């Protein structure tokens, strides 16, 4: 059974969204872009891991095919 959504695309989407927001704030002089990126980039891994974990724990056992 295929996943209802693509986890990779979701992660990339959030990454681009977050990068865009941070950059906008940096251009407005509200944040230092490099410091913010350096602090928060591991959230990508956290988000990706959480999505994978949820998907794995909610699946039915899938029979894997081979060739």
């Amino acid at each position, binding site marked *: 059974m295929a996943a209802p959504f693509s986890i*990779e695309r979701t*992660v*990339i989407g959030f*990454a681009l969204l977050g990068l865009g927001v941070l950059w906008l704030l940096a251009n407005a*002089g509200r944040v*230092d872009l*490099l*410091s913010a*990126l*350096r602090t928060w*980039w*591991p959230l*990508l*891994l956290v988000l*990706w891991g959480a999505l994978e974990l949820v998907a794995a724990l909610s699946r039915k056992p899938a029979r894997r095919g081979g060739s």
Partner: protein
Amino acid sequence: MKASKIGLLILVFGFGGIVETAWSVRQNIGFGPQGCRVLAGRFYGSSFTYDAKQTQSVPAGAAIEVTNAFGGVTVRAGDAGQVGIALRKVVFRPTEEQARAFADQVRIDAALEGNVLRIGTNRDELENRSESREVGFETHFELTVPPATAVTVRNEHGRVEVVDAASVDVTSSFDAVRVQRIAGAARLQSRHGDVLAEEIGGDLSLVARHGRVELRDVKGRATVDSEHGDVSAARTGGLVVRASFGDVGVEGVRGDLEVHSQHGPVTARDVSGAAKIEGSFGDARIAKIGADLRVEVAHGAIDVEDASAGVIAETSFADVTLARVGGAVQVKVAHGGVTARALEKGAQINASGEDVTIDGFRGEVRVEVERGGANLLPAGALTDPVWASASHGAVRLQVPPGSRFVLDATAQPGEVEVDVPGLVLTSTTAGTAKGEIGGGGASVHLQARNGEVRVQPATTAAAKNP
């Protein structure tokens, strides 16, 4: 696993790696967000210079704090009760009219907050404006402050000079720092610029990266942390130096000396107190030490002269040379030899790879050499215990007149040759010899494995003057 997952993993870690690296570079190089803009070409082309002056009254004992970028800061002593501020603005614009229009917007910011006069410019404000963000301009301060003022300077991309102040605290990057005639303490941090500190009345703390460091006449205790630059210190109080990738040269320390050096030679001369030197990939040369000396070097030779007290020396892949040591000597050498002269209080030496030669010693001596020989010549009549062992090398002992000891010499395999007038052999077999001279006394034990043992009369001048 899907290739897309692996691809995304590479992408995420690659992005994280780039961000971490960029952040680490910015932290270590020390320039702020403004520094990057030097590369944008704002400081090229035609420029125009304008001056502004201002005087500010200050209460007695007020401190001065200067913040600046892209320009020098010079602070000197002036009249009491007031601070003279001279600002030179250099504006990079194609026409004089444009430059003057911009220069009129650059102003001196001087505000007295409590007992601290804070001086700077409105550079941040100008650079945040979109219309002036791309204009290159330099701001050079020349300040005159009341005598005995505590001065703090934060600058980047400009020379800093502070003279005749009560104390000084300087943080600077990308240009030289010079502080002179400071009555009290000095705290200096510099990156990518040389540092000169002289005539400091109090303690000195210095952190330097990628620049040469020179200290002269520091009355208090000096602490130096330097990377990628030579360190030279003369006439200081107690001194602690941590250095890497640069030469360390120290002379005239009135107190204890501590040096931790990596990838650079260390030279120390005339230290009144104790000295502790640790180094790697660089030789250590020490002369005239007033108290105990401890030297540990990896991959570097050790050369010690005129040490009044004891010496502990340890090195590898290089030799140790000692001359005129007044206290007990302990030496450990891996893959190197030892050459020593005039040891007054005995020695304990472990070496491997090369010979150990002691020319003129007094006191108890213990020498153990692997893959090398031992050559021993006492400074006078031998009356103290000697224990010498060599493997794959010979043991040679020269005996001055007047010596009194009991001899036990063994060479297995090898031969023992004893030819000293007055030495009576009590037992000789193949490879061993026992006897005594002068009626017996201290124990002299000589042992060679795969080498010979030779006991001969001394013939050097040192042996003729017991």
